[in-house]
């Protein structure tokens, strides 16, 4: 507060040098003018912040993977904020403008350069909530919402459990929709690692989606229902610690639930953090594994959860493993193209992002290791390198 005051002292001093009547006029405008430029109907979007972003020279644009793929001002961070502002002010209303509000990888690359600490996906989330309230959500996205609400998962095959008997345990493993439906190998290896390390683990009889897709798409009420249900079933499991393989699940359970009024009473950890803990306790031990790998930091893990060292330390603990670093690494990582549901909202952009990231990684090693099931699936698609989750490499190293 004092710092903020000192920062703006020059403005106060400059105003104090004006004549009294001018001072009054300037101060009134300074304090009240912006109301004129904001919508009157109290939207959910933070239009004041959107306006700041719309008036920014796009200082984060060079690192925005969506812009780098689309190569169009419309898809620049401030460009989307400008259309968002016009949309919120009722000055544009086209289908294109609405669709643009979903063209974001929610990767937070923008945030690290932003003088206001904005992540454009947060700004757009409010607009999407308003689009829900105004019944303007594109049909395909409504269908996705309906599917999640109906089947509790975002995937068509609708699997919601690992099929294991729940038991009494301090540790709860939550696989997440993507692992359950597309990458069960990640759950299987994770469970095997924990078993070998002598950890008693339980699972939920039925896993509901953490709700991240609902939240991202602006379906606030539905998201809150999922959060309430999950908070309750996690509590009932009696666990003390919850381990997830999916960074988006970790972020949603840990940060978003708390923000939206459903804080969990248990510790939530990503597998990479927990594996490292077990390695440090001597519970996970490795044999030699000759492998050259390149590690890709998932955006949510690196930038929203600030977990960059743990997965590296886990890999480095395996004798014989050599980990290469791409030029854009750790908190400077680049999105694989799947983030923010981009593969659904804008498949063309998503593929372009994927190709860009994949080409940087494949130059460095034949195996790409990551710590997010969605990233793993993305890199599998290009078939340029073997794509593996951290737990698969850990288990290989233990065998």
């Amino acid at each position, binding site marked *: 507060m004092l710092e903020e005051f000192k920062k703006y002292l020059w*403005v106060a001093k400059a105003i104090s040098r004006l004549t009294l009547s001018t001072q009054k006029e300037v101060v009134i405008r300074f304090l009240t003018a912006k109301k004129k430029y904001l919508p009157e109907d109290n939207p959910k979007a933070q239009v004041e912040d959107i306006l700041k972003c719309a008036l920014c020279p796009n200082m984060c644009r*060079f690192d925005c993977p969506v812009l780098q793929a689309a190569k169009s001002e419309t898809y620049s961070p401030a460009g989307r904020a400008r259309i968002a502002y016009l949309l919120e002010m009722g000055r*544009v209303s086209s289908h294109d403008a609405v669709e643009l509000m979903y063209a974001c990888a929610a990767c937070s690359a923008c945030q690290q350069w932003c003088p206001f600490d904005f992540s454009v996906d947060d700004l757009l989330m409010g607009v999407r909530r308003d689009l829900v309230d105004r019944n303007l959500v594109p049909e395909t996205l409504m269908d996705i919402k309906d599917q999640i609400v109906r089947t509790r998962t975002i995937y068509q095959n609708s699997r919601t459990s690992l099929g294991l008997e729940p038991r009494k345990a301090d540790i709860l493993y939550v696989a997440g929709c993507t692992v359950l439906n597309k990458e069960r190998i990640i759950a299987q290896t994770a469970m095997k690692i924990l078993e070998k390390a002598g950890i008693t683990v339980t699972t939920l009889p039925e896993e509901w989606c953490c709700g991240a897709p609902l939240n991202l798409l602006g379906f606030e009420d539905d998201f809150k229902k999922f959060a309430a249900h999950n908070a309750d079933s996690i509590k009932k499991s009696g666990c003390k610690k919850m381990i997830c393989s999916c960074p988006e699940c970790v972020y949603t359970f840990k940060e978003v639930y708390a923000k939206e009024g459903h804080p969990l009473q248990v510790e939530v950890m990503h597998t990479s953090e927990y594996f490292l803990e077990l390695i440090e306790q001597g519970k996970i031990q490795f044999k030699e594994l000759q492998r050259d790998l390149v590690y890709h930091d998932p955006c949510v893990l690196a930038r929203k959860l600030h977990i960059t060292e743990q997965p590296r330390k886990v890999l480095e603990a395996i004798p014989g493993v050599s980990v290469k670093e791409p030029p854009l690494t750790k908190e400077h990582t680049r999105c694989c193209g799947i983030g923010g549901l981009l593969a659904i909202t804008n498949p063309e952009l998503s593929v372009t992002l994927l190709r860009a990231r994949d080409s940087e990684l494949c130059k460095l090693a034949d195996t790409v290791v990551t710590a997010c099931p969605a990233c793993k699936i993305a890199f599998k698609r290009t078939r340029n390198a073997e794509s593996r989750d951290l737990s698969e490499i850990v288990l290989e190293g233990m065998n």
Partner: protein
Amino acid sequence: MSSEESAGPAHSPGYEIVYPQTSLSTEKKERILANLQKIVGKRNVSCREIDRLSYSRDYWPIALRWMLEGKVPALPDFVVWPETTDHISHIVRIASEEKIPVVPFGEGSGVLGGAIPVQGGIVLDMKKMSAVLTLNDDNLTITVQPGINGMNLERFLNQKGYTMGHIPQSLYCSTVGGWLGCRAAGQFSTKYGKIDDILISLEAVLPQGTIIRSKPVPKSSTCPRIDTLLLGAEGTLGVITEATFKIWPYPEKRALQSYAFSTLKDGLESVRTILRRGIFPAVVRLYDQAETERHFYSTKKARGKCILILVEEGDRELVDLEEAVSHTVCTDHGGFPTGEAPAAHWMETRFNVKEISEFTPRDVVFDTIEVSVMWDKSMELYQSVISAMKSIEGVIIASAHASHFYPQGVCFYFTFGGTSLTGSPTDFYETVWNAAMKACLNAGGSISHHHGIGILRSRWIREELGPSHDILKSIKKALDPENVMNPGKMGL
């Protein structure tokens, strides 16, 4: 993403257009669209409203304000993304035939409206021509396409162990094409030079479709240079499609220094002496009292003074020497050493651009004005521009720092902020600018050091250039008889 089957409506009624144009007939529009699509493919042409809105403006502060007032500066008819030099050559030929404007667009960070399509037509977004073509270590050069973003270029060079030394504050949000178009200057320019000095050669498409390429040689004496006509032409004389630049090995050492001076004059005198001694720190920034207070409020020793920031970089031994000489000169001129911290603070915060976002919605009109002047007139120019701006009713702040230095003179970078008490914000804005420009011209300065002319400065360009402006007009007429390239700018 950016494709559209047919030409869309002129605009929806949700906003007013500041520079309205008569719309093209549907038949003409459809014909041009079909031809453009034939050249660059359907996915590289758009008439969508959201795209036309996105290319309706650059970073001209008053035009940003218009957005709040429900206004849009100007709408292009088409947005086109060329992928090759040939594409551009064909596009400008069609534009000449159809007599419609072509406006090159980098990343729209220009601050004077240069990229605004005031007469509609085709906005040519250069972002799909953004490749690094060659890096030559023997020659210490890099050849790139013009749509490459500055930071992405600098990141690439840094990874390979080099720097281009061109680090404008807009590094993150501008392109090489825009730098050349505006004759930009980076913050490290006192050592590395401005973009004009860093350029070796270029390729460009002239308004009638001819492609010219200059030879990449360190210097030649083969007639006047034609390629450099494109520098500072802001897209009015053609489109730059490739450029070769000097690069440097990534600096081995960087030294940070700062000094507080009782008066701006003492600070200026110190820098003048440093440069006379043949020392060229990369960054030299001297702030007047008001700006010292604003940016360095936590440096107690600089209170009520003018702070000088110096950053020397390069070979370790040379940097050590530069640091030592600079220190001696500054202290000899009454400079009080304030240590590394203020320079480090500047390094850390140099890309935090918040003013327009924070002040525009509060009805404060804010802008910066950069001008250049020889040493012997520097103080006079500083004082007269500051008092000219302060004399306008509603001006709350008027301040400056000097940001680029030469053995012969200096660039002053003025800032003003205020609110219109009587007329419209646009009138207020223009009045302050007019006062500053007149004061600058009267004091013998040049009205722009590195931002260029665009729309705003066109009204003083005649006074700036005198009869040379007629020559420029003749050149324009010879190269672009249909006035296709970026019309309505630079008084052309």
